[in-house]
């Protein structure tokens, strides 16, 4: 028997969507949630059953102290906020000039600037450089490294966007005698909002979750980040099979971002696609 088009869209399709969502995303997230509330013995071999005895508070407070979460949260913010602000301000300023001026020099500079989208950062020699500059294991070093890594992405996005803005909008301000910096701040920057939103969301995601570059730059120093501490919590607990603590940390660390997303999902999704797909 053939299913009618109407039946497909009214019954089968929603059922397929719900089952797929529950199995593909629901099961892994459920596993993390229930295991984070179990006792150590029960979490020894993680499964999908509900905890027999709830250890929610114990696990979360232990993960919170053992993973030094407040300090790591502070560290994460300390490197993310200046990196994102710096890369966006410097990147947009340069992009405006790159987009508006023509000529061979600008073309070469633009190519060089966006080559970092493709080329991987030379992570090992970055450490060497930071040691020579006495910036190894410092948040300033980390911020500068992130800015160097994501400058290409910002310049690529923003330059492309500036080219779609007609020059005429700048000219009215110019007639009024505004200087270049004034025109950039008062006229251009507000128009860049969609593309700056895209870049901010993507770069925040990358930096917030980065562990590879943070290992090399911050590793062994005083400062830490949330993913770095997740790694140390997991490394010290997994050989004892303390899955409950690992997942308590995972849930605590993921929850803020997920809540922000669920509240602002429409703006975040349109923000990501707004500047990326034209």
């Amino acid at each position, binding site marked *: 028997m053939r299913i009618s088009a109407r039946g497909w*869209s009214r019954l089968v399709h*929603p059922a*397929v*969507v719900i089952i*797929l*969502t529950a199995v*593909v*995303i*629901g*099961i*892994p997230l459920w*596993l*993390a949630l229930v295991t984070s509330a179990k006792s150590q013995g029960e979490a020894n*071999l*993680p499964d*999908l059953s509900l905890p027999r005895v709830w250890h929610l508070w114990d696990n979360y407070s232990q993960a919170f102290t053992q993973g030094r979460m407040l300090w790591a949260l502070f560290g994460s913010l300390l490197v993310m906020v200046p990196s994102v602000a*710096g*890369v966006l301000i*410097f990147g947009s300023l340069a992009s405006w*000039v790159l987009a*508006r*001026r*023509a*000529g061979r020099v600008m073309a070469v*500079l633009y190519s*060089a*600037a966006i080559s970092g*989208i*493709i*080329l*991987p*950062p*030379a*992570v*090992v020699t970055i*450490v060497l*450089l930071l040691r020579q500059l006495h910036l190894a294991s410092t948040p300033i070093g980390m911020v500068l490294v992130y*800015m*160097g*890594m994501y*400058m290409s992405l910002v310049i690529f996005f923003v330059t492309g966007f500036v080219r779609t803005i007609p020059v005429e909008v700048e000219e009215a301000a110019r007639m009024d005698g505004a200087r*270049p910096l004034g025109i950039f701040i008062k006229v251009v920057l507000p128009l860049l909002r969609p593309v700056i939103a895209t870049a901010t969301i993507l770069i925040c995601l990358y930096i*917030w*979750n980065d*562990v*590879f570059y943070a290992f090399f730059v911050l590793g062994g120093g005083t400062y830490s980040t*949330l*993913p770095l501490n*997740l790694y140390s919590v*997991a490394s010290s607990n997994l050989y004892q099979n303390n899955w409950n603590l*690992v997942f308590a940390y*995972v849930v605590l*660390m*993921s929850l803020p971002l*997920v809540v922000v*997303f669920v509240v602002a999902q429409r703006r975040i999704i349109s923000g*990501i*696609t707004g500047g*990326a*797909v034209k």
Partner: protein
Amino acid sequence: MIPSLSAASGRSPRRAVLYPSWFLAPAFAVLAVFFFLPTVFNFIYAFTDWSAFHDDIRPVGLANVKAVMSNGSLLSSLRITIVYAVLVAIMQTGFGLGLALLLERDTRINRFARVVFFIPVLMSALAVGYTFQALLKPDGPLNGLLGALTGQHVTIPWLGSTTWTVVTVAFVNSWKWMGLAMVIFLAGLKTIPADVLEAARIDGAGRWRTFRSIRFPLIAPAVTFNVATALLGSFNGFDTILATTGGGPAQQTEVLNIYIFRVYGNGLFAQATTMSLALLLLVALLAFPVIGYLRKRERVL
């Protein structure tokens, strides 16, 4: 239009006044010192004996290259990195496209499902990796579910096979990122004009024909974007692998970045630099032709 304004060509000094060169300075200073200088260092220190065991750094020629060649780690890491990146690019783009087509219509259930499928994108790849490490244990929940469905005792070593684990790990990474691919495909699908689809329907094109001949070619830019970002991202793959297998079993999921991390941890900085240089050359050699090819297809389709 006023002639004096429209005559302002790109090269005229007027442009340099309106858009001062010093606006470029901060961005390019950061790029030069913290991106390009380390890249130049990469070409120098790969040929030295820089390590944690002595303070002086001396040139040693090709000794590091010979060392990573003779113990087989260079070729094996290169091979695994390429296999992993290609698998991720295929799975992530495929899953993303499938989800976008499934969840395209704006119903309440679809909107909810889109949000749920985006949650893994926000999670740290480490967190995702640990979750799947637990889920995929031989006596873990996934085998338990499969056992309950088939009525047999299932003990598939998802993360313990020297041949197939790289596929599992690539799947986990694609699982994490498929929500982003989905969102980009959804944006691409939205740009297709309704009258084009209507014309195809009147011409009697079925669902598959419409997809193959009209919708797929029109979302070619989204395919390019997704394949390129998946490839580039997984050439740099690290977190997911670290948290699921750590490079094992028997180093069969040890991509270049895992190798760099392990060898650096052992204090062999110069060897890690050599591998970092290998990664740079791999990406430069492969990424540019791949992106060029995808762009050409975009025009042909």
